[in-house]
């Protein structure tokens, strides 16, 4: 019997002209009816390709099947079986290149909206009470997890379920990592993050905030003081600058600072909250990744009249999620392709008064396979802006490595770790997430946290590979 074709259900969103001035969530989430309709579209494949595209192998047909049958609780449990943070992934995963890209429907029509359904189920669970899953009996082992981002939280949650005692050390005063300080409220409400953190806590994980490992204690000290294993999930939080003249003028922010002030410190609620933030009349954001989109859309919401994205490559190379780039353009962000800043211009008080840029053209492909931008001589021009936000990417923060001899790093500053297990060159120390891969995605960090938790569990139980490090031919990516 040929299946009746149901169109992919659109996500209800705030209208661009409205949302560009508020910090409420842009995507509003499916209604029950939409979710059930969308769930009907799934073919319940026997060999689901979609699962292959998900870095943590969420049981996609099963949870969608349960949702279709209105067994919401079961859907949530199925989802949670593989994904500790579904409400987050449903919102920020780049589904179009992961699960949904592999959905069989994508060959002929639009793929099942897996991310949106995941969000629906996770939100249902949050509203109807989260159930704490069963845990293995206590193993008597203790694990220190450093960093409370998605990698660390996932690893900690799984380890607790395996029966180990877990302590998470987090440098900031709030857990969540980039989810808390980087990704804005309008894409990922902070109460969603807090609820997911609460869930991890409910598994018995102890969170120690305001602990900067490398300063207050070193990795070696943690091992000496009785932790049987350490997982490093400290991310890639070190902002990069261009090194051009004028970059230290007042009014030049790193995206990290701009977003941290706004998201973690809630500067958009100043003076209810004490942390101030400046926003220019005309703002230039340099870069075109997710971070640049978040910074530019935040600037708009804080009241900037004009926000310009300055990007040295062309539209085809934009690294941001497609949906977020479209959202930004819809909201009125102006994008300048093939344009590269060469100097920030200042006034007599040391404030930004303009951005000198140079036009680029695309040359031969570079190492990344993308065509390299080449400056066009004599094409300099000045943009009239009074604020510049540098969103150029980030590297791992070296602080955690203080006094941890034996941890090998690449020249990019990332930790050398086995891709399958997360083992580093230092015995009993695992690592995963952005600290290993460089800036990547929430779900890949979670996947790494899960794989490491499984290996830590096996290792601590004396199972699995007890030979710490076997030089792999291909893993030590440098």
């Amino acid at each position: 019997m040929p299946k009746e074709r149901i169109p992919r259900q659109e996500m209800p969103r705030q209208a661009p002209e409205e949302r560009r001035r508020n910090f409420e969530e842009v995507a509003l989430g499916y209604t029950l009816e939409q979710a059930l309709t969308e769930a009907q579209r799934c073919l319940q494949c026997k060999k689901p390709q979609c699962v292959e595209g998900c870095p943590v192998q969420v049981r996609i047909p099963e949870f969608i099947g349960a949702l279709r049958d209105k067994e919401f609780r079961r859907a949530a449990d199925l989802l949670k079986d593989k994904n500790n943070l579904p409400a987050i992934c449903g919102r920020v995963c780049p589904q179009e290149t992961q699960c949904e890209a592999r959905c069989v429907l994508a060959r002929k029509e639009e793929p099942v909206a897996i991310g949106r359904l995941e969000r629906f189920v996770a939100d249902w669970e949050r509203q109807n009470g989260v159930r704490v899953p069963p845990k293995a009996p206590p193993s008597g082992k203790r694990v220190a997890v450093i960093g409370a981002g998605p990698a660390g939280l996932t690893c900690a949650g799984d380890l607790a379920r395996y029966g180990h005692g877990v302590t998470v050390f987090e440098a900031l005063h709030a857990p969540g990592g980039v989810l808390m300080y980087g990704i804005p409220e309008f894409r990922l409400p902070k109460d969603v993050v807090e609820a997911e953190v609460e869930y991890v806590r409910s598994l018995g994980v102890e969170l120690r905030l305001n602990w900067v490992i490398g300063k207050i204690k070193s990795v070696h000290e943690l091992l000496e003081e009785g932790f049987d294993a350490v997982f490093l999930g400290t991310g890639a939080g070190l902002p990069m600058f261009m090194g051009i003249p004028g970059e230290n003028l007042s009014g030049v922010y790193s995206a990290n600072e701009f977003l941290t002030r706004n998201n973690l410190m809630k500067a958009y609620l100043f003076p209810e909250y004490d942390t101030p933030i400046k926003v220019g009349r005309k703002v230039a954001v340099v870069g075109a990744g997710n971070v640049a989109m978040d910074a530019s859309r935040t600037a708009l919401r804080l009241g900037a009249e004009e926000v310009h994205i300055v990007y040295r490559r062309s539209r085809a190379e934009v690294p941001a999620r497609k949906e977020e780039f479209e959202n930004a353009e819809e909201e009125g962000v102006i994008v300048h392709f093939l344009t590269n800043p060469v100097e920030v211009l200042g006034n007599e008080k040391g404030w930004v008064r303009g951005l000198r840029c140079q036009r680029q053209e695309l040359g031969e492909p570079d190492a990344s396979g993308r065509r390299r931008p080449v400056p066009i001589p004599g094409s300099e021009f000045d943009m009239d802006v009074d604020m510049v936000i540098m969103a150029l990417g980030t590297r791992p923060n070296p602080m955690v490595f203080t006094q941890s001899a034996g941890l090998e790093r690449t020249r990019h500053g990332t930790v050398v770790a086995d891709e399958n297990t997360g083992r580093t060159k230092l015995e009993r120390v695992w690592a995963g997430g952005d600290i290993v891969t460089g800036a990547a995605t929430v779900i890949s960090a979670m996947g790494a946290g899960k794989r490491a938790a499984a290996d830590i569990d096996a290792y601590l139980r004396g199972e699995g590979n007890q030979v710490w490090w076997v030089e792999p031919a291909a893993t030590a990516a440098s």
Partner: protein
Amino acid sequence: MYPIVARQDLAPVTKLLVIEAPEVACKAQPGQFVIIIVEEHGERIPLTIADYDRRAGTVTLIFQEVGKTTRLLGTKKPGDELFAFTGPLGLPTEIENYGTVLCIGGGVGIAPVFPIARALKEAGNRVISIIGARTKDLLFWEDRMRGVSDELVVTTDDGSYGRKALVTVPEKEILESGEPVKRIWAIGPAIMMKFVSLTSRPFEVKTIVSLNSIMVDGTGMCGACRVEVGGKTRFVCVDGPEFDGHEVNWDLLMERQRIYLDEEKRALARFEEMCPSCRGEQH
């Protein structure tokens, strides 16, 4: 939460708080700082570790009430708690036996200079110290500084106590007197550190200053604290806070300290409105 275990009012706007934070106390070294949040909606502000007691597990902070956050902090008493307390951050002072050293503290900068002078003394240096303030009321820890110094000069801008002079006057005299000063530490307002550095430059005596740029995280994550030293961009929170004063771009530092002046005024006005009893009152 981090309990306050003692409080002392050193001057009308200068307060001392002792905080229970055993792990921080255990690792603290001269020259390092902490980042605190006073109450839940508060901002993150850096304060130097003025002293620490490893056995008691406490850290001493000394601060001047200059704006909303430090004013609020000034209302806290033993039994109250701080919302967040992170440290020890920054690199410790390089303590060695240099021979003769000069330690200069201006205003609230006397607090952070004290543990440095003490450590230098313990390392065998001949320590000459200068402490100065605008007026007598703002001076504190004269005794403690005397206790760790071979010589101590006290100045006030208005002559209400000690010598009527800026700290740079005795600094210059000491350098001219032929004292074999090997290194100078200067901590205080940016303008004072700038002039101490300018004064020592012709004598070619290395001058270490502790920069007080605006910070957020204090762990190298945001770049708010960036300064230029020797023509290069450095992050005060991880590369400092101590730098060679002869290499610092002082004008840039001072411009960047003023970024939020308007917001700071608004926050303070609002604070005073909401908390009339705190206005100019002593506790």
